[in-house]
Every structure is written in structure tokens, then in C-alpha cells.
């Protein structure tokens, strides 16, 4: 095969799989996450080239596709996993491209003989797509040697090894805990080909996320409110239980409540379309985050 032919193939494959389109979607729908997007592009490129190499009868062995997504809550792991499932589908590495998201409770049973059928049922449902196991390290509980999680891990390992054509597994969770999990489960670690780390969002990324969320709900921040919200983000990030994008969504939901309350209190005056759309600084500044005396540890997630 000549070089020219290979070039033609690449363009053809790109057009045919429309994978570029998905990567663009990923770029626009998720703010920031540059390292993640770079990794996903690299993985997509590798898989595309692997396809072309297979057509040219070049082989590095069947590619391993199982992945680990690590990062704090709200950093976009599930969203990226959904897109990853589509990318794998378009490139022909999984047949259906759906995502089955589970946690330990979906896989591990309560009594002897319960775990294997539960895990197998989940695996059967995920076949043709991607199995996303959130907080996968909970499957392994070394403190209890009779824990049924180990049985689920063994069945998973078997399918991850023998049925690579039938499904891709993505393990997700906090980075440090996942590291300890892999250290104690070398079998699992060796089957994971791609590790993707999701960093926390920078303050300006969180502001941009807030902008996107508000835009989709047809709200906006006044100039004062924007300043207040930047301040809010700075304070909230340093508090416990901060969950990145998820905390931003919760904060905005609260601000909407306060805005509505404020507007209703203006009974007697007329409301403009602008009034209905605008969140003012006050709607944000009432938050407990600004109350220095508040017991920060008591603040519920996303307050």
C-alpha cells in the first residue's frame, strides 16, 4: 500500500466515522478539561489508526480499551464516558454504543450465590456498549476477607479479558482511592489501557460553566451578580464537599429560588422580561458561604 493510499484511507475513515464531529461536541459542551480532551483525542486517534493498520494487515494485537477515569465529583467523568461510548461505537469498537452506569450495589449481592448472577446480568446488559463503574474501589474491601466484592471483581476480570469485543469497562472514582485499588488488584490494573485524570475546574472555568448553565435556562447574571458569583466560587472551592460543576448547578438553583422570592415580594409593581431573566447580586450574596461565622463543615454539599 502506498502512502497516498493511506492518506486517502484516513480521510475516508474520518468522514465515515464522523468521529471529528463528536470530538467537537465534546469541546463545546464541556468547559475546560483541556488535558482530558487531549487524552480523548489521542485515544480516538490511536483507535482510528489501529483500524487503518488492521486494514493494511498490520497488527499490534487487539487493542485493550478498558479505561479508568479519575477525578473529584462534578468534573465531567460521566459525560465524557457517554461521549467515549459514542466514539467507540462510531469507530466500530463496540456494536451499540450505550452506557450502563453502575455502582457496587448493582454488582455485589447480599448472600452466597447472589453476586455472580447479579454481576453477570449487569455485564449482559452492558454488552455492545460501555460499562461505567462509579467508585469502583468499593468493590474491594480488604478489611473483610469474605466480602462478595472480590467475586464480582473476578467475573469482571474474566469478561474484560475474554470478551473485549463485547464490551468496554470504565472504572471511575477519586484518584487516590483508585490508585490504592489498582495497587491491591494488579490483575485489574494490568487490564486498564488508558488512565484519564480529570482535574478540578479553575475558577474562571467554573464561571464559564455557570454562564452555559444559565444560558440554557434563559437566565443571566447582572454585572454585580457576576462579581458576587466570582467571589462565591472562590469561597466555595475552599470549603469541604466541593463538587465542581455539580456545586455550581446547585448554587444556581438556589439563586433562582431567591430571585423568584425577591420578585414575588415586589407585588404591586410590574415586572419586565428583563426582571424575569436577571439574577442580581443579592440573590447570591444571601448564601451561607458569605457568612464568615457559619460552621463550614455543616454546609451540605453544594450549598
Amino acid at each position, binding site marked *: 500500500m502506498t502512502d497516498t493510499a493511506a492518506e486517502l484511507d484516513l480521510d475516508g475513515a474520518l468522514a465515515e466515522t464522523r468521529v471529528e464531529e463528536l470530538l467537537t461536541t465534546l469541546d463545546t459542551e464541556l468547559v475546560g478539561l483541556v488535558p482530558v480532551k487531549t487524552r480523548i483525542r489521542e485515544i480516538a486517534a490511536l483507535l482510528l489508526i489501529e483500524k487503518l493498520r488492521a486494514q493494511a494487515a498490520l497488527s499490534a494485537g487487539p487493542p485493550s480499551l478498558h479505561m479508568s477515569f479519575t477525578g473529584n465529583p462534578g468534573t465531567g467523568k460521566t459525560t465524557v464516558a457517554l461521549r467515549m461510548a459514542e466514539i467507540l461505537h462510531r469507530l466500530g469498537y463496540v*456494536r*451499540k454504543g*450505550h452506557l450502563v452506569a453502575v455502582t457496587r450495589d448493582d454488582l455485589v449481592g447480599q448472600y452466597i450465590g447472589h453476586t455472580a*448472577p447479579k454481576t*453477570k*446480568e449487569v*455485564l*449482559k*446488559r*452492558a*454488552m*455492545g*456498549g460501555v460499562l461505567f463503574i462509579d467508585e469502583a474501589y468499593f468493590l474491594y474491601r480488604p478489611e473483610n476477607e469474605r466480602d462478595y466484592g472480590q467475586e464480582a471483581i473476578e467475573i469482571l476480570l474474566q469478561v474484560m479479558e475474554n*470478551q473485549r*469485543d*463485547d*464490551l468496554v469497562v470504565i472504572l471511575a472514582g477519586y484518584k487516590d482511592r483508585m490508585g490504592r485499588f489498582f495497587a491491591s488488584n494488579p490483575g485489574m490494573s494490568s487490564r486498564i489501557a488508558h488512565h484519564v485524570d480529570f482535574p478540578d475546574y479553575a475558577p474562571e472555568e467554573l464561571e464559564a460553566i455557570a454562564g452555559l448553565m444559565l444560558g440554557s435556562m434563559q437566565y443571566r447574571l447582572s454585572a454585580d451578580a457576576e462579581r458576587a458569583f466570582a467571589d462565591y466560587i472562590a469561597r466555595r472551592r475552599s470549603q469541604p464537599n466541593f463538587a465542581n460543576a455539580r456545586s455550581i448547578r446547585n448554587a444556581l438553583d438556589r439563586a433562582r429560588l431567591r430571585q423568584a422570592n425577591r420578585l414575588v415580594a415586589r407585588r404591586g409593581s410590574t415586572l419586565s422580561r428583563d426582571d424575569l431573566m436577571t439574577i442580581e447580586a443579592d440573590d447570591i450574596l444571601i448564601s451561607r458561604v458569605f457568612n464568615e461565622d457559619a460552621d463550614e463543615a455543616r454546609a451540605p454539599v453544594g450549598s
Partner: protein
Amino acid sequence: MRLTQGTFSFLPDLTDDQIRAQIEYCLEQGWAMSIEYTDDPHPRNTYWEMHGNPMFDLHDAAGVMVELVDARATFPRHYIKVNAFDSTKGIESLRLSFIVHRPDPEPGFTLERHEVEGRHIRYTVRSYATDRPQGERYP
């Protein structure tokens, strides 16, 4: 003899690819899949043994094929069939049912005639296989 129950028994035995294609069709219709086996295929033996519970919410035939491989390994000399169940109101019954594995040879059935009064005949279809106890029917 060749047992001709099931939707495709008059065709040559289906290959795994053909079986997979039929399962894909069923899954696209939103039907639940199940696998059953028996060593007594009497035409009125409605309740074959269930190889696990019916499989709901699958997206891909691979999930059923895993169970089929397992069933064949466990019961190499039984009949095995794949069923598709439709829970739509007004149907709530099987929509497709086809044999995917059979013993070799297939012993078949005898027709017993019991002559009663007035030259009437009572008919009984009996599986040759059931001459032997369960578990020893297909040596």
C-alpha cells in the same frame, strides 16, 4: 427423526451468526430473551427447564450468546431453545421461539393406540426418551 417444533426447524441448523441476528431482531423489538432446555420434548411439554431467569433490557445479542454457550456446555445432549417474550398489553406472550441445539440422535415419539369400546381409539404420543430416567435419556 427431526423435532420440528420452533420457528426455524425446517431450515438447516442455524449457525451462531444466524442465531445472533435473530436475537438482535428480538432486542430491537424490545422483547426479553430466555433460554430453556429439556430432555423430554413432548409436543405438550410446555415447561422446559429455564436456564436462568429471562434476560430483560439487553442491548446486544452477546449477552444471550454468553448464556447459550454456557447452556450448550452444560447440556450437550438436551434440546435447547431461545425464546423472545413481548410484554405489550394484549400479547404478553412469546413472539419467537426457536431450537438452537439438539441431541444426536433424536429418539422421537411413538403413537400409542388404546382401543376402547365401539372401536374407538384413544391416542397417546409418548417420548421414547422418557423410557429412561431423567439425566440418562441421551446416552
